């Protein structure tokens, strides 16, 4: 088992910032760190699960019908997550709304199924799924932290106030769509900047 499969999803091949996948839920759900973590857990379950199943079945799935097969497997996991979240974490389910069933069209999951799980053995696929999910979680939590802190002046995770209010007039626009776009633009620009400086050396 190569740990590299796990860690590559974190930085080098971060699904969001490098492969530019999974944007829709990223921006929609990053209004608070709570939501971000909840969504990442859902994505982790689906990605790891579908990667494993598809990898297990990879020799039996004919290439002509592989897309419908992937869809059925991924959609099944998503429905399971949807049902259990509704029953056991109803507030999270309500806050995430339609973005839970939309995990099925999260480009990350599909892309990994097609590019990786259908060709590699189960253990590697499993680690890849976990790695990519953690990479996604990193991205979405970073963005959510920025948005939450800048827009409400505090950060509340699972009821614990991590950072107490430090300003009276927070910048609410960060919670709205334009703020989301701005945040990811800044982060991507910073990453590009690091890259350019590295190349100059």
């Amino acid at each position: 088992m190569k740990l590299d499969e796990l860690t590559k999803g974190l930085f080098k091949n971060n699904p969001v910032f490098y492969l530019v996948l999974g944007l829709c839920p990223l921006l929609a759900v990053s209004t608070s760190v709570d939501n971000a973590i909840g969504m990442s857990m859902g994505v982790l379950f689906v990605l790891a699960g579908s990667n494993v199943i598809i990898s297990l079945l990879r020799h039996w799935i004919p290439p002509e019908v592989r897309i419908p097969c992937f869809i059925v497997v991924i959609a099944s996991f998503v429905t399971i997550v949807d049902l259990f979240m509704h029953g056991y974490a109803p507030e999270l389910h309500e806050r995430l709304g339609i973005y839970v069933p939309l995990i099925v069209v999260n480009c990350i999951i599909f892309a990994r199924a097609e590019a990786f799980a259908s060709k590699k053995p189960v253990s590697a696929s499993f680690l890849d799924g976990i790695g990519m999910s953690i990479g996604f979680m990193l991205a979405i939590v970073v963005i959510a932290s920025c948005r939450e802190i800048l827009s409400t002046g505090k950060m509340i995770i699972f009821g614990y106030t991590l950072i107490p209010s430090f300003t009276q007039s927070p910048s609410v626009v960060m919670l709205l769509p334009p703020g989301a776009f701005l945040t990811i633009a800044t982060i991507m620009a910073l990453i590009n900047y690091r890259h350019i400086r590295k190349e100059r050396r």
Partner: protein
Amino acid sequence: MDNLLAIAIGAIFVNNFILFKFLGLCPFFGVSKKTSSALGMGVAVIFVMTCASAITWPIYTYLLIPFEIEFMRTIIFILVIAAFVQLVEMIIRKYQPSLYKALGIYLPLITTNCAVLGVALVNLNERYSLIGSVVNGFSAGIGFTFALLLMSGIRERLELADVPKSFRNLPIAFITAALLGLAFMAFSGMRL
């Protein structure tokens, strides 16, 4: 009865799928570099979203609800959408090769487009009638295309502008989207 005009205006401006609901972002940033490809994608999306709304609504109402298997809607919808897109692609390729050349490559991309499945689910959540759903699907597609065209027009100009190196390509595109989103927020108070 649904107010069809309100649904249409809502889907195009107030609740624009890209700039407000964050649905359909992947093709938005991938395809919006040139106006011609943006237009092609837009037309394909309008078509698929309208048909998807028209097909998924009866399936939900007359198949899933009576059998009490509403929880299967995610999987059934996405399969139906994928099958439909595949079918359309085959038909276009066979009967209109020129059209296929222009549009065909976008069709598979649309299958995994959050916007198509998203609009089908929104129709259910808002409990629109069949006509309402179709109008919503069509208008959402128009809104998507509208935002896409705005974006591609701006990006074409940006190619010629002197953008700081770190911001080239994606970051400046996101900032453009932010500004577009701010502009569209002016619509959010509209009541019909």
